[in-house]
């Protein structure tokens, strides 16, 4: 199972729509904590990309062990079960992080209404 398509999300651009907001905050109140600039956005993108790469690795491990089980080369039954469990947990975690990020973005988008 390949999830390369999701990997492209890793290249997500920093939230450029927020830049005017940051500028506005800086002009109205100079004492406000400097909001996360484009650099922080890029870091978040990298973080997401790394997380997806690790998820891809766990999925590959589980897939390889599944093939070994099917072809009779698997020496330890639990190796596959553990790899599949880890892959399932990693997927759940990635989806949870994705949902949280999406919720935060939606919350910010609602501010203009």
């Amino acid at each position: 199972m390949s999830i390369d398509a999701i990997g492209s999300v890793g290249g997500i651009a920093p939230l450029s729509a927020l830049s005017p907001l940051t500028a506005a905050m800086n002009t109205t109140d100079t004492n406000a904590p400097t909001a996360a600039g484009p650099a922080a956005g890029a870091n978040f993108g990298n973080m997401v990309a790394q997380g997806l790469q690790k998820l891809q690795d766990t999925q590959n491990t589980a897939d390889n062990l599944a093939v070994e089980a099917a072809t009779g080369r698997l020496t330890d039954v639990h190796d596959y079960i553990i790899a599949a469990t880890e892959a399932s947990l990693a997927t759940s975690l990635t989806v949870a992080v994705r949902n949280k990020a999406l919720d935060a973005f939606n919350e910010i988008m609602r501010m203009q209404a």
Partner: protein
Amino acid sequence: MTIFGAIGIAGTGVTVYRKWLDAVADNVANINDAVPTSGQAFRARYIQAQAVRYGDGDGGVVVAGTALGDPKGRLVYEPENPIADREGYVKYPDIDLGSQMTQLIMAQRAYQANLTVVDRAKDSYQAAIQVGKG
């Protein structure tokens, strides 16, 4: 250190006890191997477990090696056995079936315990992922 550490650590334990089960199975399977008194009796296999340091390494346990039993075995008087020597003795491996059965139960229970740790760790991580939902 990986993100789901407890699962991996318990997994190394399952591997070690699987090997212990294999060793006991091998010892029990060969418990009645008779050899001539001039030869070497079957040597029982004993698994030696060793801890992987948590912090430096990933934690968990590995099989450091296999210790072998005494090749001298024990002499049994079986004059009707075709491989018996002039006095009528053959050599059997010096393995105690009761001890092997005890080890079998220990290995089986430890195997199950480690799998239970995997299961509980999975439930715990799932609960952590569920935080804030709904």
